[in-house]
């Protein structure tokens, strides 16, 4: 058999198996009506009720408002605390610098006056 004929035969065989797959697949839902009896339905509804229960627990007190309010309050408080801390640190360091300058100036004037007195 020539190479081309062999290839053609092979393609025909593959196509036949593919056709068989398609036929098999299209008949595979025959049992759909028989599946999922009352026990299965009750299992679905039990899961649905659990979902609803979980949703209600989350939404007690007006949906997601409580967690949001808490987070917003915490963020605002933290920001305010940081600003106050920055202000205090800056104020403190400025005050220290000013005090040091004043002391130095005072010390300088004392030294100067003492020096003048010596002269």
């Amino acid at each position: 058999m020539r190479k081309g004929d062999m290839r053609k035969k092979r393609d025909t065989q593959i196509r036949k198996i593919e056709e068989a797959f398609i036929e098999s697949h299209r008949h595979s839902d025959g049992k759909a009506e028989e599946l999922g009896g009352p026990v299965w339905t009750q299992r679905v509804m039990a899961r649905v009720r659990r979902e609803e229960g979980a949703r209600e627990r989350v939404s007690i007190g007006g949906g997601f408002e409580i967690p949001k309010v808490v987070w917003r309050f915490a963020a605002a408080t933290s920001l305010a605390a940081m600003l106050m801390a920055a202000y205090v640190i800056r104020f403190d360091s400025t005050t220290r610098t000013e005090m040091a300058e004043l002391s130095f100036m005072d010390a300088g004037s004392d030294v100067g006056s003492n020096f003048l007195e010596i002269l």
Partner: protein
Amino acid sequence: MDLTGSGMPRDEDIIGRVLGGDVDAFEVLVERYRALVFSIVLKHVPAEHVEDTAQDAFVEAFRSLRTFSARAPFRYWLSRIAVRCCYNFWRDRRGNPEIPVSGLTEDGGKWMDEVLSADSREAFERETRKREAAEVLQQALSVLSPEDRMVVTLTHLEGLPVKEAAELLGWSTISVKVRAHRSRRKLREIVSRLMDDR
């Protein structure tokens, strides 16, 4: 309450009741669309995982019920969820195939021989209804990635148009089109290898 011609409450009314807090009303939807969801899931996941995956689909539908806009019928919206649950099933098992990838079983090899030698339509169809047909198909699909598997199943095996498959999967049409072409070629290569394994 609006009723359909058959005296059954409409899907939209039931959804309204569920969203209003009557969770038990969801059972009506479960009963109404149970067969639809099973018919989808049966075609995509192994038999032993069908019930759990169908359950996942309904629970996911319940979770997402607020996003249902009634622009499309509920059954279509639910079908999309069921298809995505099947995709999630395979994505979660990526690289962990339950069916051995290589080596056709003796029964699988025999089934292939029978299919290839079937000389009438009746004989061919008889073969396609055998358990081995589903087994060899699952073996071939198990080699594909979850994405390829879903696309080849929807477009090639079920024969859905690319646009519809894309909508069911929630992917772009072009992505599904490219993947459909590639995954079909891969499936043919796998079939060829399985034929050599006989």
